[in-house]
């Protein structure tokens, strides 16, 4: 199996789908000649030409709207936001035009929005945001957020083949974090299915994206103290894998939910509410959340380090909850 970074896995997935299906094309700012701000689409222009790798104007509403229009016509557009933060300039297209399209027409809208999101790139408040919760609260959208290179490719293929608008949240911190074995050729990570990463009975840890990696590090620290955590990588945020979440918590009786996005109103709230309602009888401790601060993401590295949950904070929360 080839060893790929998360970033290479995305490029690999795009290239394979474009080779397999002539309806698939990519559109975004600086993605063609330049190969994208993160060089993810590098080489695609040469292989597929300017009508399938489209260097678009600086206009998110136009670019997302054009993707929707092409999808209406049966194409399979993959629209890149240069940074996920800029999707706010296309908000009407995403939450009103795309999200409600199938419900109003009963015809498919196969659209993928690539959303480079999250912190640790010294990007500050407008290049680091995690806004997945806005879209999880918008019926008609699917939301995925891979944590591994394998899922980066598998979920991208699934998103491109899905007949619905899918927001594909790719974490910038993970782009070049490390190389992993990624199956060559076609494979799909099913949307809506969480991944049990680690077996344990002391408590359930539910996370996704960058924070999943911090949770695994923290789980190692706790394991040294004999605490065996059940770790779940959500992978899909909408629709949530309710069974996987509830199944784990019914087994362990305790839940720790960790995400990078600001705490208040984040996806963690929905997950905690789900647990507190559906698995109440199994609960042996408070449903606990660790999340980003209720503040914009700061640019200064020291401040930003304080913004996100740290491995130490997660490990402490694990110990506290396990001891509860």
């Amino acid at each position, binding site marked *: 199996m080839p060893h790929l970074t998360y970033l290479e896995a995305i490029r690999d997935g795009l290239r394979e789908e474009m080779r397999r299906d002539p309806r698939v094309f990519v559109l975004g700012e600086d993605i063609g000649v330049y190969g994208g701000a993160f060089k993810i689409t590098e080489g695609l222009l040469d292989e597929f030409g300017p009508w399938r790798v489209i260097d678009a104007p600086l*206009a998110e509403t136009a670019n997302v*709207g*054009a993707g929707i*229009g092409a999808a*209406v*016509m049966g194409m399979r*557009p993959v629209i890149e936001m240069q940074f996920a933060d800029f999707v706010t300039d296309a908000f009407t297209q995403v939450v009103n*035009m795309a999200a*409600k*399209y199938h419900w109003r027409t009963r015809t498919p809208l196969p659209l993928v929005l690539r959303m480079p999101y999250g912190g640790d790139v010294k990007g500050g408040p407008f290049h680091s945001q995690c806004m997945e919760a806005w879209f999880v609260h918008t019926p008609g959208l699917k939301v995925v957020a891979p944590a591994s290179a394998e899922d980066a490719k598998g979920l991208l293929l699934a998103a491109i083949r899905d007949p619905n608008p899918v927001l594909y949240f790719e974490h910038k911190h993970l782009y070049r974090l490390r190389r992993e074995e990624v199956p060559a050729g076609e494979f799909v990570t099913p949307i809506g299915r969480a991944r049990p990463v680690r077996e344990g009975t002391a408590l359930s840890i539910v996370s996704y994206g960058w924070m999943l990696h911090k949770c695994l590090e923290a789980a190692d620290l706790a394991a040294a103290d004999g605490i065996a955590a059940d770790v779940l990588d959500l992978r899909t945020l909408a629709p949530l894998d309710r069974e996987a979440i509830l199944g784990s918590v019914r087994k362990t009786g305790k839940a720790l939910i960790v995400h990078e996005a600001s705490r208040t109103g984040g996806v963690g709230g929905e997950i905690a509410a789900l647990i507190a309602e559906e698995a109440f009888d199994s609960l042996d401790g408070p449903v606990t959340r660790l999340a980003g601060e209720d503040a914009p993401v700061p640019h200064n590295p020291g401040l930003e380090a304080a913004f996100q949950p740290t491995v130490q904070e997660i490990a402490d929360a694990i110990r506290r909850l396990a001891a509860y």
Partner: protein
Amino acid sequence: MAKSTRLSDDRPSPRDALAAGILPERLLKLLYYMRLQRAVEDRGVKLYYQGRIPGAYFTGWGHEAIAVGAAAALGPDDLLAPMHRDLAAYIMRGMTVGEVFAQFLDREGGPTRGRDGNVHMGDPRRGILPFISHMAASVPVAAGMALACRQRGEARVVLTFFGDGATSTGAWHEGVNFAAVFRLPLVLVLENNQYAYSTPLDHQTAARAFVDKAAGYGIPGVAVDGNDVLAVYDAAAAAVALARGGGGPTLIECRTLRVRGHSEADKFSYVPKALLDEWTARDPIPHFERRLRTAGVLTDAIDEAMGARIAGEVEDGLAWAEASPEPDPRTVADGVYAAE
């Protein structure tokens, strides 16, 4: 902004139109669709005042020449991204009168199956983009539809309608610019009815005329009398031909007046009486009828037959809609996602 000039002098006469190859049958078809929109909406107004139409009700009274003249310029495989004052265009592209009434009545038989209301509809299966309430949100999407045609090398054209108010939105600007940059086959039809709800043109733009915006996108722009179906047709036909030939988008400013309220709930006292009288007197339907009679194309017999046919279609369509079931409340959460 300068008040719309009447342009009456440069209207092509029916003889020009005939010379331009528009046969009597086609001229009568234009009249038929204009009268059909008026008749359907007239019936809708009655239903509305009978309290049988849930929510708001909008008409395209006075806009019929724009809807019909523009849509008549499209070929069979072309595509439409309409708005809320061009009902005839929906019907010319294949929507049935029954489906339209079913939409008004929120029934399962309507194109949105009761999920959305009044003119907020469309039908992708027939190449009609369903528009959403957010003004001009269809413009970038129409550009994307044109992009797909271009990508696949299909000689199809997309025509979209929008209002004077809609031109103030970012969505309109971004969509027009995108289509212009890639020279996409898109025809941009502005229904300048001098008001956006209660807002007059001088609160919408300081431009001398909306056509002046075209140069800013590097596309041709033309202004026509929106109450003259042949003037609209001629401009649209030229724009469609240009777009089909790879010449990119054209902005067509059709000037008219919204001679009723924004919706039927609006008493539109903010519209000056003189302005209203001026444009009411220029109702596009009798105006076109007079010209067809002068040209000997419309006769009493044809007129009566057309009226009878339309009356029948309206009543049959309404009956069909009334026979269509109310949506089942238990399906409220259905259809949010397309099944793989």
